[in-house]
């Protein structure tokens, strides 16, 4: 099985703080890769570097063979990203949001129209396609948000805590949909704080803390290696049980 994402010594620091420190991981094509870690572990920073929103200070990374620093456009074209925040415009309808992003990705008009219909059908929102996203429930918005990341038919999907704040029905739907993505050949990188979710969905897992990867491998292998019965136990074993009250070293105030 060939590699979809590869990072070698990838590092990102903000002043004194190393948010991601010499991370080397490899994600196999067509698999779901779970990225776990406590708050501030560096998961989101790692994903932001992979999707070209942040420049690394050191190291290299590639997505589907494209270097994230020198081939940014190619990387953006093969990546679909679902961030923690909704990347949707509330005063546009679901169809308009998908159309906008399809156009920004340069999807051909006729293909785009057909793809929007298919995706809206998949998320069961065809009947409300022309309603403003602002009128949608949280679950409906997240469904649109996920298929927005698929509008240009990427090969790799990065999902940053996609089930956060959703009701159980929506959580179930997202998990099933993510599994479906893998079955359709997409490579998925998923960050989550839900250990069961990670265990259920991901074939390979990486546990990060303080910017470093502490363990990486298949869920069963990791449990066996560390002599634990579930992923939560493994997570606490590796990252500790103490509360994370330490300061990040850099306070970023909004508005300055």
């Amino acid at each position, binding site marked *: 099985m060939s590699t979809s994402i590869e990072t070698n010594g990838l590092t990102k620091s903000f002043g004194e703080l190393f948010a991601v420190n010499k991370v080397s991981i490899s994600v196999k094509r067509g698999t779901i890769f779970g990225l776990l870690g406590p708050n501030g572990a560096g998961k989101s920073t790692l994903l932001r570097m992979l999707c070209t*929103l942040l420049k690394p200070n050191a190291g290299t990374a590639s997505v589907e063979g494209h270097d994230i620093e020198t081939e940014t456009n190619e990387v*953006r074209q093969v*990546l679909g990203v679902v961030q923690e*925040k*909704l*990347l949707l415009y509330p005063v546009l309808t679901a169809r308009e949001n998908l159309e906008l992003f399809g156009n*920004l990705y340069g999807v051909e008009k006729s293909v785009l129209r057909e793809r929007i219909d298919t995706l809206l059908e998949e998320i069961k929102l065809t009947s409300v396609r022309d309603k403003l996203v602002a009128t949608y429930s949280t679950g409906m918005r997240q469904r649109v948000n996920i298929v927005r990341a698929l509008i240009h038919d990427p090969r790799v999907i990065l999902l940053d805590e996609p089930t956060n704040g959703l009701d159980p029905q929506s959580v179930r739907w997202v998990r099933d949909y993510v599994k479906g993505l893998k079955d359709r050949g997409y490579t998925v990188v998923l960050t989550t704080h839900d250990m069961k979710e990670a265990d259920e969905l991901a074939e390979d897992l990486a546990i990060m803390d303080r910017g470093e990867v502490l363990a990486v491998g298949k869920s069963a292998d990791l449990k066996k290696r560390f002599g634990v019965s579930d992923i939560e136990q493994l997570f606490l074993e590796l990252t500790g049980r103490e509360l994370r009250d330490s300061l990040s070293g850099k306070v970023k105030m909004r*508005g300055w």
Partner: protein
Amino acid sequence: MRKDLTEFYRIKARLVAMIMFPVILMLLFGYMFPSGGGVDHIPIVIVQQDQTPAGISLSNSFIYAAQSSKAFDVSTTTSLDWAVNEITLGRAYGVVIFHQGIAQQLSSGSVQLEVILDQVNPTLDQSVKGGVMQIFSSLQPQLSASFGGIPANRGPTINLQFEGIVPGQQSSFEFLAPGMIAMSLIIGGLSGLAMTFSREKELGTLDGLLMTPISRISIIFGKSFAQVVRGLISSVLVFAISITLFGVHVYGSPVLMVLVLLLGVMAFTGLGILATTFANDQESAQLIMMMIQFPMIFLSGSLYPIIQLPWFLQAVAYFLPLTYVVSAFRSVMILNAPFSAISFQVYILVVITIVVYAIAIPLFRRSVMR
């Protein structure tokens, strides 16, 4: 309350803007409306068409009195066209014409002089009118003396005929309309862009745009263009209201007017991008915008003539793009100025736009890609 104030204190952009805004505003108003004295050193042109000793003598007396009173800075010419052009170019606010035949008129006891007013600003027009009348009134005894010491009330009288540079009677609003149109551009271009960027930053949707293969420049220009359209729509609205409800006339070329407006919006959107790099949320963006907008509105000559400002505020005014938009737009709209008359303002606007974008684009890139 304490929480809100603490928040205010900790968000530095808001804090700085909150302190600076009233300071700037008060300094501005304090210096704009000085307690004593009116406008002085108003540039005017004297047209000496009568080259006879009597004509030269009368005009020289006027020039001497005008300069002594410090009310006017006088330049002289024999060409009426040149003098009128000085007004169109915004370099003079009035023209006093000493027509041929002054000697004969003096002997007949009544001299007819023509004064052409700029009409671009009613306040300034009044100052020119009042100043010219006062000077001629002070010359009356001198005139009588030159006619053999007869009493002042029996010497030759000087009749002044005031005319606008554009024929017909203008409404006062006519002079304000160009400034109002330019101001609506600011609101559209400057604050619109800063607000849209900061809103997208706050919502997180900017990331969505930045993750697509389109370039950062395209995002900036796309958003700027939307603000250009928005600014032009509001300008057209102000324009339509001015014409239909307040009888404002357009004397100049619509093409030139659109050109000036477009250049103005481009410069303002550049400033908007620059401001947005310092503000991550809408409230901070709004405060920063107000800090830029208010001085610009009051210093640019939109509402008051720049000449009324003290020298240091005049110096500031010449760094503001709105000053050139208002001046050029007014000249085209009211004085039917050709391109050559506003070319200086146009070139300055092009330079300001290029400089602002050259600074704003790298800063914007840095702010979104750390």
